[in-house]
């Protein structure tokens, strides 16, 4: 080998450095592209945070959800920021609080000019996108340009039916005689993930289950009819639907609370069975490891708590939601529970972060990726709860701040504001607002509320 001069050596070193940098950069980008995960977001409706078999429910068997928990991170302090279908759904899609995305109740329309969903950024990052299932936001079903597949329904004001629910498949209304909706939507979801493509996919699978009026598939009808329900809250009774204003929640007034609850659990079991099928399909396709799955519900549900069957206030059971993320390639220590507070508005920033897409600048949420990687235990200390008037439901408009240990609630109308210890008093029976402890907390709670609401305070 010929001896190199100093100049030659420097020149070669320089070239090597440039070459290595270029060589290092190009594969790195290519690598990042290859590593983009597939994404599946599964949204249930009105599923309580504690209605998973692995949460110790007395009889509910949910092997699908239990598997996600076993193989992922289970966020046991997950909340919705508005415990109502349409606002919460808009929050998942936009990463924003209801006062920002504008879908404040089940009547205020989705503004397709103003609101941008996370699908836009995901699309730009090279994904093919599908929304399959319940859209249920007021106004006409919009055209979302960043969706490659859009299957939804508008029957019964967007609530759909459990049986024979006509679907709007990419804009074309299609009858679905004899179909059970949870199975039908899962069929379409599986069809989408099986499509051959070089692009990663992002699937938003939004179920009708388990919203009222609960109807399980025929083979699951009655499977829980003999189960003991003595674990339901003390104040539960059979004819809650006969109370003023309760029947309009959607529960058939002709059925007792117990009958409705059994149907709820049976419909949830039907959902879980379809989840098992979907997970099995991912296994068969060999894409489990590179697929991030998020499971959540739009809000919780009261089954007798406060003599209520519904979700329209800031009770713990109404605002807590199930929230599980499974992503074998991107999760440290799978199978763990994470107790940091996470929200529905965190979905969009998290998915964008996982996909390597540009963040959504107008998002109020925070990416949970550091929690998935076990680099952070929590991403926030408090959040805003909002519930806007939703005629004709008998619930006052209300705003609150939930911290790790307390909630401060302010109501429109005659109801007195309150501060409650959510750990010692999850039923919100002992109002601390007039106690020395409550008075100490009040100024900070009010300040936080005003800050979250952009200076609007308690709305009075």
């Amino acid at each position, binding site marked *: 080998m010929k001896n190199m001069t100093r100049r030659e050596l420097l020149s070669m070193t320089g070239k090597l450095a440039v070459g290595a940098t270029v060589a290092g950069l190009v594969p790195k980008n290519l690598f990042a592209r290859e590593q983009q995960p597939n994404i599946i977001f599964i949204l249930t409706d009105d599923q309580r945070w504690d209605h998973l078999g692995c949460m110790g429910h007395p009889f509910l068997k949910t092997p699908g959800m239990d598997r996600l928990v076993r193989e992922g991170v289970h966020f046991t302090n997950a909340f919705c920021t508005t415990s109502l279908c349409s606002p919460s759904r808009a929050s998942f899609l936009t990463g924003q609080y209801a006062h920002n995305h504008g879908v404040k109740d089940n009547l205020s329309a989705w503004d397709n000019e103003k609101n941008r969903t996370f699908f836009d950024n995901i699309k730009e990052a090279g994904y093919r996108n599908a929304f399959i299932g319940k859209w249920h936001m007021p106004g006409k079903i919009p055209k979302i340009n960043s969706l490659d597949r859009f299957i939804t329904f508008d029957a019964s004001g967007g609530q759909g039916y459990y049986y024979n629910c006509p679907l709007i498949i990419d804009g074309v209304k299609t009858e679905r005689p004899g179909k059970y909706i949870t199975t039908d939507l899962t069929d379409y979801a599986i069809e989408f993930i099986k499509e051959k493509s070089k692009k990663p996919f992002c699937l938003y699978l939004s179920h009708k289950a388990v919203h009222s009026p609960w109807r399980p598939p025929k083979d699951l009808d009655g499977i829980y009819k003999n189960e003991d329900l003595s674990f339901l809250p*003390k104040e539960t009774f059979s004819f809650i639907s006969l109370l003023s204003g309760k029947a*309009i929640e959607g529960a058939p007034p002709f059925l007792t609370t117990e009958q409705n609850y059994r149907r709820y659990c049976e419909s949830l079991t039907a959902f879980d069975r379809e989840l098992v099928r979907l997970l099995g399909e991912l296994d068969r396709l060999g894409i489990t490891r590179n697929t991030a799955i998020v499971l959540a519900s739009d809000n919780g549900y009261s089954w007798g708590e406060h003599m209520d069957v519904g979700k329209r206030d800031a009770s713990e059971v109404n605002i807590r939601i199930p929230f599980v993320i499974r992503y074998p390639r991107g999760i440290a220590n799978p199978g763990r529970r994470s107790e940091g507070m996470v929200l529905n508005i965190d979905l969009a920033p998290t998915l964008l972060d996982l996909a390597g897409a540009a963040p959504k600048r107008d998002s109020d949420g925070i990416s949970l990726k550091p929690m998935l990687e076990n680099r952070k235990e929590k991403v926030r200390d408090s959040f805003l709860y909002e519930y806007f008037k939703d005629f004709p439901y*008998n619930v006052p408009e209300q705003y609150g701040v939930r911290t790790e240990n307390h909630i401060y609630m302010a109501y429109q109308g005659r109801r007195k504001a309150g501060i409650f210890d959510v750990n010692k008093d999850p039923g919100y029976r002992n109002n601390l607002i007039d106690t020395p402890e409550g008075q100490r907390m009040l100024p900070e709670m009010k300040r936080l509320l005003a800050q979250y609401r952009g200076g609007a305070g308690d709305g009075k």
Partner: protein
Amino acid sequence: MENKYRHIEKASFLKRFMPAGAALLGWLVLHLISENLGWIENRGTYKLAMNTVHVVLFFYLAFNGFFVYRAMLMKGANLVERIAGSYMTPLAYAIKEIIRVSEFFTVGESFFYCLLTYPVLGLFVWQAGLLATSEMLCRKYYKKRNRYEGNTVAAVPLAISIFSLIALYFLFLYDDGGTAFYIYMESYKMIFK
């Protein structure tokens, strides 16, 4: 309107309306009981008490007009008085509901709330059919005793009964009440949004 009932002594105004007043009082008592059972510690007893009182309250509200109508007739009340007396309890219930929901809604919305299928509008429609049926049964009873001169089954009460049944079917059973609720909400949006 000609009164075809004969030999029914007309009592004083207060006495004629006594059945309606008693029914109203009964509803108030039941309502107060239903609101104040939280003190019962035993879970089984509480549940039994709540179930019983709410079922009784429901059927009381639904059916008391039938008996009030008949009782007022026996006191000599005319048709308008019988209808007014029979609607007294449902009306009081509607007023209670308007006051209750006015905490959350504007005055206009609170009144519009009463057009909601369940509970107020449904109760009023049901009541109309019930009173028409009660009228026909009263006629039959008194005709047998030669104290009523007209036909037992007449066009107006029969039409009201049939209309009431059809309306109830639409309000509660057709599409599980979903279509009626949809129309109600569309009307709400047109008026208030």
